[in-house]
């Protein structure tokens, strides 16, 4: 059994039953044989649903681009099957797959105008002239590029190129749109705008989006579901909230957001922290009673100065860092473990945060403790 099925929330499992699968990646491996053998994808299985905004998230070199290239048909898999719905497309060349790609460097044809670029796919499909014309105009409107339709692609800005690439890939109305880090070349402001724009486009067109990024914030804000990848494997698939709050493994927790990892003992649905405190937890499949590692997000706990009372854990304040909307308190527990806690900043004059060197009491919110598989 793969990890993602094990961690599907009950609610999500219900969706999975009722929603049709758009792209079914079934035990796919990809091995590049060069001077050394690179296992770019290692027995990957994932089902991407119709009309879903699905994100592949992972560090550089984990195989995100490779998975996209396999789905698009630019490269054959070494093993496994890729299905579109229930149809096997492993042998279908890329020009016969109803899948389009927005390339990381946009790959706009430099010898064609903006409009010609957008029309290209429609022409290749042999659509009548009038229809091509109409769709191109519609696409230009959709990405708000009407005025620049006759420009050369080298004469428009990066953000505009990005939108042309998007329009070009959307024009043939594919079943699935693949986007390989389409925003990584843009500056922060433009990036935020485009994130919203992409969401809007996905909503308006109803096309399945498979989006690649290594920016966790981008993944969390935009996606319906996220798959976290590492070293050619998919570690966890789930809604952004599940991924963030219930990471299955230490890698996922570490990769997304800030984490405190604490030692604990698990016995029958309850963990007892080494540093003190008992919590009811959901026990992931495959984890036995005994010593475990648990995760507490820095904002899921609070801290105040003073000695620990009942239900609190004592610690020493090592450092207090003010960072605008929050203050991060670095603490040392009695067990020697380090922990940081993020406190939202109230207007000045409110309760003062603990002082460096002083004693502090930590209160962990119920449900904030997540047992990790490893």
């Amino acid at each position, binding site marked *: 059994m793969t990890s993602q099925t094990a961690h599907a929330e009950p609610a999500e499992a219900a969706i999975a039953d009722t929603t049709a699968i758009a792209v079914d990646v079934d035990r796919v491996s990809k091995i590049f044989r060069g001077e050394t053998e690179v296992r770019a994808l290692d027995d990957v299985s994932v089902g991407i649903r119709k009309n879903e905004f699905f994100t592949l998230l992972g560090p550089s070199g984990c195989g995100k681009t490779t998975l996209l290239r396999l789905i*698009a048909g*630019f490269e054959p898999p070494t093993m496994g099957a890729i299905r579109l719905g229930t149809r096997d497309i492993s042998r279908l*060349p*890329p*020009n*016969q797959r109803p*899948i*389009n*790609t927005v*390339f990381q*460097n946009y*790959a706009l*044809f*430099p*010898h064609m105008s903006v409009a010609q670029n957008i029309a*290209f*796919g429609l022409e*290749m*499909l042999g659509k009548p002239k009038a229809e091509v014309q109409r769709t191109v105009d519609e696409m230009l409107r959709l990405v708000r590029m009407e005025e620049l339709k006759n420009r050369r692609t*080298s004469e428009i800005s990066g953000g505009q190129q990005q939108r042309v690439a998007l329009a*070009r*890939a959307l024009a*043939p109305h594919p079943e699935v749109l693949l986007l390989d880090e389409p925003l990584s070349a843009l500056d922060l402001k433009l990036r935020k705008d485009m994130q919203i724009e992409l969401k809007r486009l996905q909503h308006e067109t109803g096309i399945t989006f498979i989006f690649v990024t290594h920016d966790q914030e981008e993944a969390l804000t935009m996606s319906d579901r996220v798959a976290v990848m590492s070293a050619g494997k998919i570690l966890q698939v789930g809604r952004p909230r599940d991924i963030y709050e219930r990471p299955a493994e230490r890698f996922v927790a570490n990769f997304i957001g800030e984490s405190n990892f604490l030692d604990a003992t698990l016995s029958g649905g309850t963990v007892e922290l080494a540093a003190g405190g008992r919590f009811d937890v959901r026990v992931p499949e495959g984890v036995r009673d005994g010593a475990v590692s648990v995760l507490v997000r820095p904002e899921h706990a609070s801290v105040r100065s003073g000695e620990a009372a009942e239900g609190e854990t004592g610690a020493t304040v090592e450092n207090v860092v003010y960072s605008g909307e929050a203050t991060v308190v670095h603490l040392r527990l009695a067990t020697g473990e380090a922990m940081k806690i993020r406190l939202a900043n109230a207007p000045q004059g409110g309760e003062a945060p603990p002082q460096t060197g002083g004693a502090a009491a930590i209160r962990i919110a119920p449900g904030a403790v997540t047992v990790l598989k490893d």
Partner: protein
Amino acid sequence: MAETTTPTPTETAAPALTAPRREPRGYSVRSLPGFAVIAIFTFFALYAPILILVTYSFNAGTSLAIWEGFSLRWYYQAAANEAVQDAAIRSLYLAFCAATIATVAATMAALATTRTRRFPGKTMIYALINQPLMIPEIVTAVALLIVFAAIKVWTGHTSMIYLIAAHTAFCVPFAYLPIRARLETMDNTLETAAQDLYASRWLTFRRVTLPLMWPGIVAGLMLAFVISLDDVVITEFVKSAGQETIPTYMLGQLRRVVTPEVNAISTVILMAGVILVALFFRLTSRRR
């Protein structure tokens, strides 16, 4: 002049108190003593002989040494010379055929050998294509003489086909060079994108690859044309009787009394060459 911590020969020779010798453009590590003089001499030496040749082609007199005034006499004479006309037409025809075939073959070969993993035989194909560049022309010429002589005797056929084949072969690597260079600077993902947008292999080539590599192809064609037009050695050995090209005609003339007519023909060839090379330069250096 800025203070330099480096003791140059001039500075060590002239103490700081005396007026330092001026280096008007400042101290540059790029200038080396005497190099500019040699360079200017080189350029003079490169062009002086050519200029003299061109000048005497306009000489009114028969002499190659004494200037007797400007005239186009030798140009008219060369143009009216049936042997020259014949050779010129043959040269152009030959260069046209050879360059065209060579460019088509080189374009296909460049597509096959660039932008790829190592495939079985790649090195061999590459070595074969460049083979004519490695071997001295005289060796190839003699080898062709041997083989073509046998074929001519055997078939009794002595058309231009032998010259065209020989010229095409040594034009291929020259046409290949700029086409390959162009392909290597081209972005692979453009073709991937075309295929992604439902273009078949052929349409991808027609609509994306070909338009983008076009400048390279034209440059290759021009280079091949010039190379074919200039060839003497291989042509001299492969041609059948009565198949003179302009260069072999001139080589034959050199054995006899030299008249400024040869200068006039040379000048025309030079001009044609310069124009083609200038165009070639424009084509290959105009990349964004």
